[in-house]
């Protein structure tokens, strides 16, 4: 079934139809909009989580930045759900594809930069020069700041891709190792299995944290430029 290590990162295809869009749309089926005042447990917990995340993320923003609440909240929910669902066996994780992450990162980052340049031109350009720099360093520092600005979307996308891909790869590798070791040396296979358990726990954490970091950084760029 798996010719090489990376076949699990191929987009699943049924009868020649790539299923990427369906897989990306699947997490929305798990979020049920609350219908009544008192819902079932799942809806209540989702509601509570959404409120918690929203309060945590958006209180430090200006009112203009808070117009992004829906965007950022749906972003963190989307990334977190995709990452967590990717941990199930034989699942395809859309966030391992650099194309998707770049498609998320570049528009969001560009939106914050353009917003800053349009509404607060002086202040957003002033971010290029930190306070208190010695005068001879200024030209070099501006170049460095520009590069660090341009690299932000790439960093966002590549960070998410690399983390999730690396975690999945490790899990596959360790699984293969455990399988191979079972016929050779059973006890080290048991140890590997225990390691995999720990790794899955880590992956769970990484999944959530990466979503959080992505959204947080976009929020940060927003805060700078709103």
């Amino acid at each position: 079934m798996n010719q090489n290590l990376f076949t699990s990162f191929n987009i699943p295809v049924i009868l020649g139809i790539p299923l990427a869009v369906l897989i990306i749309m699947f997490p929305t089926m798990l979020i049920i909009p609350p219908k009544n005042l008192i819902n079932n447990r799942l809806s209540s917990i989702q509601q509570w989580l959404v409120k918690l995340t929203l309060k945590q993320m958006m209180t430090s923003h200006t009112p203009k930045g808070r117009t992004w609440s829906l965007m950022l909240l749906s972003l963190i929910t989307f990334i977190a759900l995709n990452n967590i669902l990717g941990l199930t066996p034989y699942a395809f994780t859309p966030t391992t594809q650099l194309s998707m992450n770049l498609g998320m990162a570049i528009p969001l980052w560009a939106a914050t930069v353009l917003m800053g340049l349009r509404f607060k031109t002086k202040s957003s350009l002033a971010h290029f020069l930190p306070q208190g720099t010695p005068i001879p360093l200024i030209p070099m520092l501006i170049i460095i700041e520009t590069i660090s600005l341009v690299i932000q979307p790439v960093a966002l996308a590549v960070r998410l891709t690399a983390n999730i891909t690396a975690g999945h790869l490790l899990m596959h590798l360790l699984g293969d190792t455990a399988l191979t070791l079972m016929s050779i040396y059973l006890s080290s296979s048991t140890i590997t299995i225990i390691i995999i358990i720990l790794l899955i726990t880590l992956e769970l954490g990484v999944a959530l944290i990466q979503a959080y970091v992505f959204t947080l950084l976009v929020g940060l760029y927003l805060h700078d430029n709103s």
Partner: protein
Amino acid sequence: MLFRVVLSAAATAAPSLKNAAFLGPGVLQATRTFHTGQPHLAPVPPLPEYGGKVRHGLIPEEFFQYLYPKTGVTGPYVLGTGLILYALSKEIYVITGETITGLEVIGLYIFGVKKFGPSVAAFADKLNEQKLAQLEEAKQASIKQIQDAVDTEKAQQALVQKRHYLFDVQRNNIALALEVAYRERLHKVYKEVKNRLDYHISVQNMMRRKEQEHMINWVEKHVVQSLSAQQEKETIAKCIADLKLLAKKAQAQPVM
């Protein structure tokens, strides 16, 4: 619309039906029947409180009940085992590294659900309960407010019954004040009248005194005027002679 076309065609075909063409649309609407079936939107049937019963978290109970008449209690389990063994032995399902990872993920998930399930469920129930409690509290506060208003109203009504004491006291006060004012004014009137009368009396007294003095002065003046010098001399000589006589009499008397 087609009905009208049909009607007009029928009218041209049979002239006796021409009058019926005017009734065409009305007839169409009148013959359409509304609200004949059972209303199926209301009342809404009550939603079930709990979901369907599931065995092992995955397989609905109805499946076991469905197989029970034919295969008894162990039927579905034998079926499941058979399917799994068939898939494994025919390599329909290949055991790879993914199998081990998958088994561990599922094992971890079941462990998590078994361990944290009840507490998460209790938390969710608590969230709902808090919402209900808030509303209930609002309702109770509203009821209490209205009850307080009713009690206040009752107390006010009871007070109203006792208002006549207040009115009596006020009436007495006012009567007293009126009496005092009346007496005060009476006294003032009396004083004023007495004042005027005293004035008249004193005027009269003064007039009489003045007349008396005037008369006395007049009499004295005229008497003094009438006294001539001769008469004055004679009077004085007579007085001296009288005085001498008196002196003699006075000298004579103490000797006695």
